[in-house]
């Protein structure tokens, strides 16, 4: 028949198929669905409760809660009050959080990328599995272990390197110090955090690089590329957004880390951009520091600080997951 004739035939409409699930299945679905909602419920609850408790302080301080640099509680833990009004601003600590996290990322991410490239493209097969296992083991170490080790073992060497940096590069404002006190500085905290995030970022980078389509790699080699030319031309462009996502996950982890930073950082309430100077803090260690002796009002302020930390890390992690998933799916 001709096309015109074919178009004129009335094709039957598809049948609508329905299934009525059995009662047991309905119950099953309901139970499972409730369980699955737990993540939504918990995340929402965290935001709500921290917000409720900290609301009073947030409302009072407004934006200066984030930007203000002073933290002073007029009510002491024994109930006595002083004349000056309470002021709560986490600005200095927020800066400390970001500074230490950035130091961690700038040291840790290049090392992680190098390690991921090594594991995927340079390591001899016989030791590859072992090295991957070693790095995964490091990811399982509890953070208090890094705190203890950082304080006892890394710090002496860290101070020495800080002094070296100051000696040769002290003309850069970042590496200058107002007083020669190099112990327990943001630099050392950043170093410990870098070591903590290396396993995570390496793991993600490794997964991303291993998804590089093999035929593209072979095409580059077939054109006479060396290993490094091939990596630059094929692997890095392919894995770029995934690695950035991994770096952001590392950033999020470094921002939220508490115990490891608390032990190696000398917590002083000021914004400190001289990373070699032993002073500074981050929001998490602020909370730990003040919690023990806080008055009822100060606790509310600490809740508000916790809420800020929660929102910040949530944002960074969501962005990170978006980027990683985009690359990992690309390869398939």
């Amino acid at each position: 028949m001709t096309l015109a004739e074919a178009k004129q035939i009335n094709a039957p409409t598809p049948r609508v198929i329905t299934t009525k699930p059995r009662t047991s299945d309905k119950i099953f679905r309901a139970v499972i669905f409730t369980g699955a909602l737990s993540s939504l419920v918990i995340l929402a609850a965290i935001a709500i409760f921290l917000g409720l408790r900290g609301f009073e302080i947030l409302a009072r301080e407004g934006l200066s809660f984030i930007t203000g640099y002073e933290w002073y509680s007029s009510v002491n833990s024994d109930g006595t009050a002083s004349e000056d009004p309470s002021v709560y601003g986490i600005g200095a600590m927020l800066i400390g959080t970001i500074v230490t996290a950035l130091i961690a990322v700038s040291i840790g991410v290049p090392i992680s990328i190098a390690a991921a490239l090594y594991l995927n493209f340079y390591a001899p097969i016989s030791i590859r599995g072992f090295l991957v296992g070693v790095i995964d083991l490091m990811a399982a170490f509890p953070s208090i272990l890094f705190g203890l080790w950082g304080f006892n073992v890394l710090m002496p060497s860290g101070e020495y390197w800080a002094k070296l940096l100051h000696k040769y590069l002290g003309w850069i404002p970042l590496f200058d110090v107002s007083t020669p006190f190099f112990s327990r500085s943001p630099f050392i905290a950043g170093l410990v955090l870098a070591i903590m995030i290396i396993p995570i970022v390496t793991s993600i980078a490794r997964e991303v690089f291993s998804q590089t389509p093999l035929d593209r790699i072979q095409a580059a080699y077939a054109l006479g590329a060396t290993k490094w030319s091939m990596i630059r031309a094929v692997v890095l462009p392919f894995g770029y957004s995934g690695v950035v996502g991994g770096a952001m996950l590392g950033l999020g982890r470094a921002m939220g880390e508490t115990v490891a930073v608390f032990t190696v950082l000398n917590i002083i309430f000021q914004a400190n951009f001289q990373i070699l100077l032993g002073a500074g803090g981050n929001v998490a260690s602020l909370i730990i520091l003040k919690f023990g002796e806080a008055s009822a009002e100060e606790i509310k302020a600490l809740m508000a600080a916790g809420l800020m930390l929660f929102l910040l890390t949530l944002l960074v992690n969501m962005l990170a997951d978006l980027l990683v998933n985009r690359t990992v799916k690309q390869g398939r």
Partner: protein
Amino acid sequence: MIMSATTLNYPKPQKPWKPKQKDLIPTYIGILAVLVGTWALVEFTGFAGKLGAFASVIICTTIVSSFLAGRSRGRQAAKNAAVASIITALTLLAIFPVISILGTVLVRGTKGLYVGFFTTDMGLASVNDPLNVGGILHAIIGTFIMIVIATLISVPLGISTAIYLTEIRGPGSRLIRFLVQAMSGVPSIVAGLFIYSSIISGSGRGFNGLWGALALSILMLPTVARTAEEVLLLIAQDLREAGLALGATQWRTVAMVVVPAAKSGLITAMILGIARIAGETAPLLFTTGGGDVTNLNPTDGVMGSIPYAIWKALISGSAESNARAWASILVLLVLVMILFFSARRLGKARR
């Protein structure tokens, strides 16, 4: 005409691309040059100590290997060799901390161990007491109890989430998967703070082990859910279809076909979740009160835990408390490593 292999003299398999002895002479000379260069750098310049020696070796290796490669094969090869040596150096930097940490824990931790360490608690001792007084029995029991409770809460919820995402795939799956990933990034201090703010603060309730376990569940849930989802996705679709084709309802298929098939993987998910929370300190600081006496009741009174015991020792700052901290962390590390290797063993057995 087909010849049998035995009548033919086939050559042995070779790898002609592997460098032969005489090709390696430049490499041996290069290694010598690196050793000489390193010694020279350390002797005559400010490079000192372990870092200096390491940096010198790297610099010399990069220069020498790059030079050798460039001489015989041109600029691209020189760049390639230089990059290879830098990447290897950075990888060594990544591995070094693990070795240092394991070594330090082993050396310093074993000093503080004695039999009583595992059988006494800190009820009658302070962290600054000499090392043969007091132990972490209370902490071990506390950690154990809280892990059990957290597991009982987060494993069913985590596996339900995974089943919802893989078997039912209902509305909101994308959102839930996204939320689980977001939840895995929640800082541990926030989990503790949340339990404090919602349950303890302003209510007159005290610290106890149950609240600590709840905070730990928040951290354990995403790990269990993600691993369980990965494991369930690996189960071939034909298995489910076989169950349904036999007339089973969906819940029977899941309960009697899919979950048993994924059994070892789900156990791995549980173990990984436990490993995640076994060493967590910050959440416990806001919820459990860190008791010094053995307490078997999670709903009544402060409860100790290994991380909290380490924390107390660490904060105290004396030589004895420091040694105590190392000993306790040795115990914690052994626990974490047992969990880690069990999970790996189970993971390999699956394949």
